[in-house]
């Protein structure tokens, strides 16, 4: 580790707070540009998807348990399970799977 975690925290926090506070304080008009609005509309889903896979299968002790958690999570979320039910299910799948590996 050649970088300082405290500086990482400082930079990340400064950027986050700037994003949250600057539009509120500087922008009085509405963002009208359709492309920018659409881009901001799609960004969260794409970012979360990219960050979830394949990271989830590398996060666990075995790739099999992470993969099964991914499949179980997608199915549960597809049928409308809440945030915490999906999270709990994913954890349980990993725990139980790894008992048998």
């Amino acid at each position, binding site marked *: 580790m050649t*970088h300082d*975690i405290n500086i*990482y*925290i400082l*930079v*990340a*926090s400064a*950027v*986050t*707070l700037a*994003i*949250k*506070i600057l*539009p*509120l*304080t500087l*922008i*009085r008009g*509405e*963002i009208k540009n*359709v*492309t*920018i*609005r659409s*881009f*901001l*509309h*799609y*960004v*969260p*889903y*794409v*970012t*979360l*998807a*990219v*960050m*979830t*896979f*394949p990271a*989830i299968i590398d*996060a*666990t*002790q075995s790739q099999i348990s*992470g993969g099964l*958690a991914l499949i179980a*999570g*997608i199915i*549960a*979320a*597809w049928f409308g399970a809440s*945030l*915490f039910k*999906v*999270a709990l299910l*994913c*954890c349980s799948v*990993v*725990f139980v799977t*790894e008992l048998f590996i």
Partner: protein
Amino acid sequence: MTSENRQALMEGFRDGTPIGLGYFVVGFSLGIVAKAVGLSPLQGFILSLLNNASAGEYAAFMVIGSDAPYLEIAMMTFVANARYVLMSTVLSQKFSPDTPFYHRIFVGFDVTDEIFGIAIARSGRWLNPFYNYGAMLTALPGWSLGTACGIIAWYFFSPAVVSALSVALYGMFLAVIIPPARKEKIIGGAVAISFLLSFLAEKFFPDISAGNRTIILTILIAGAAAILFPVHDEENK
């Protein structure tokens, strides 16, 4: 404090309590990841207190874990939190001209998906900042203490339990992206393409860090979707 503001504060506190409890669990899940990349409980507490953003914090942990340049954490945090530009802009429209300027800063400090949601859902043309402050009373400590607890929990849990808890955050991400992916075809397609390209990118370009991969793919995929399928209705307001 006027009685109107006190009333708004109490309502915010009431509506924010379930959010704060939920944030404790989100924070706890983040803490598990934070510990894996080397954060102390205090560092996790401070990061969560100042950021209050699950995707943004997770993005930061990825960069810290790969020991990437400081510029990368700035770009990663920017991309992962880009949606708050829109929320913050929407909130800026809800401020009465009579509300002192500094309230905009304090409300902006804790823009989250959920607090934004309840603040917009509350009836009335103008937003009372004290409503947001009431919600922040549970949201901020829930999130930051949750993160610190998640980091501390590492010392008490077995590797099997830590392995299981490591996927909690991904489960939450899935719960956020899958229902809209089912409802809106474009989002569903974008999510599927994101999974695929992210997988291929890691396989064929292992030298590109996880942070840069996320930045590049997000701009490419969300940019292509925005150009090909612009959103014309008001549903993302």
